[in-house]
């Protein structure tokens, strides 16, 4: 019984991904990932680090060491609200917000984000709506996010929804641009460019 509960807490080097850091650092904006001195100023200034499973400083250290699974499955990257405080404060001018974005993109691509965690759901619903209409209609975006993550919460938010509708701030008409085909052409051109680089694009289309 006792022995069954014991698990190895430290990874063998063979389990790490030696290319992970290089892949992340090749994203525009993430170029000086390797100059991090682990000072922790990012974690200190981050208004959300107190909620994170790994602080931003640790995420950088883990990314560099190749802890791919742990970093991509962390809540940290989905708690980052992109306030750029760390990016401005970093003494080595690492664009940490961009590193977080690169990790989010990778987690979505590899489908390893925490299940039913609403942030990636919101990101994907937003992505779909803009792909189709060129704009996002806030009311439908919110409805779809709740349906796919936590339908119960939508009922709780009913009063707020009603108040927004009452004050003319929540229309149900879908917003759209005129030149939808032009936008499709643009986004398809991105996919082609990305395919050329052997990267699998998201291509979230209905």
């Amino acid at each position, binding site marked *: 019984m006792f022995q069954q509960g014991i698990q190895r807490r430290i990874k063998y080097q063979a389990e790490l991904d030696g290319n992970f850091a290089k892949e992340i650092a090749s994203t525009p904006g993430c170029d000086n990932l390797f100059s991090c001195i682990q000072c922790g100023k990012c974690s200190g200034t981050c208004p959300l680090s107190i909620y994170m499973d790994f602080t931003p400083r640790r995420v950088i250290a883990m990314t560099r060491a190749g802890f791919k699974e742990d970093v991509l499955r962390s809540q940290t990257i989905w708690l980052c*609200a992109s306030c750029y405080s760390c990016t401005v404060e970093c003494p080595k001018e690492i664009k940490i*917000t961009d590193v977080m974005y690169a990790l989010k993109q990778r987690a979505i691509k590899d489908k390893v984000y925490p299940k039913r965690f609403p942030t990636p759901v919101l990101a994907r619903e937003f992505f779909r709506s*803009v792909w189709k209409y060129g704009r996002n209609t806030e009311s439908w975006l919110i409805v779809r996010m709740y349906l796919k993550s936590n339908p119960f919460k939508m009922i709780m938010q009913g009063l707020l929804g009603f108040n927004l509708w009452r004050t003319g*701030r929540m229309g149900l008409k879908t917003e759209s*641009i005129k*030149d939808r085909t032009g936008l499709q052409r*643009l986004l*398809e051109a991105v996919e082609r460019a*990305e395919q050329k680089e052997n990267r699998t694009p998201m291509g979230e289309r209905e």
Partner: protein
Amino acid sequence: MKYLYYPGCSLKGTGRAYEESLLAVFGALHLPLQELDDWNCCGATAYMAVDEMKAFALAARNLALAEAQGSGNDDVTLVVPCNACYLVLMKTQRYMQEYAEVGKKLTRILEAAGLHYEGKVAIRHPLDVLVNDIGLEHISGHVKHSLGDLPVAAYYGCQMVRPYSTFDDQHNPMSMDRLAKALGAAPVDWPLKTRCCGGALTGTIENVGVRLNYILLKEAQKRGAQVMTTACPLCQFNLECYQGSMNRQYEERIHVTPIYFSQLMGVAFGLSQHTLGLHRSLVPMPQQLAI
């Protein structure tokens, strides 16, 4: 000088009052804002989290449209009131120049959609235009209604002064404070003016998002502010719409009224509540704002 205007999705939805008051105020100053024709969503933080190149392409389409609609002027000014749109458009412009491969790739992608961008658009926040182009002296000349030294906490939010814009200080910006003063309000000294409101976190991880906004409002109230002026539809939404639940959750009595800085301007200019969208607020207004 003609200003092109990029509203963004929120200013057509939950942030309608921002658009209404901004257009009214620029109109009162005889500086019409012309809406960019067929603009698309900037991509916001969500697109960047899914696919960086598509996020850049979305933003670049708007920049290309702005350049084409700038009626042959060499310099086109695009006024972007939403902090998130402002940052995304600036970031795209910056990365096209800073990273050659991004610039080259985007140029080819735009061409595939029959568009072209040369980088001639100046992306400006309306606060920057008001304070630095029009000037506070000119603005205070339009004041018709006394705000009676209404104590105001100027809240800039994160993405306006960080990390790309250069019109104000990244740690302690002052433009909105100076504007409030020129309008006859009394800006309070408070240290959280660029601390993040959490953005979309109120919708995704509510307890965390609400806490961030609670910290902002509580500190503003402690320093005597009755009103918090905002410059971003998302900050405004969070600070305004979650005040009730925050008071219940933390057993507090916070009553700081968040309004757009353009609404404060409009009130000082003597414009009606309806013109400024003040009737859309879910939080009661202090007396000094009633005309």
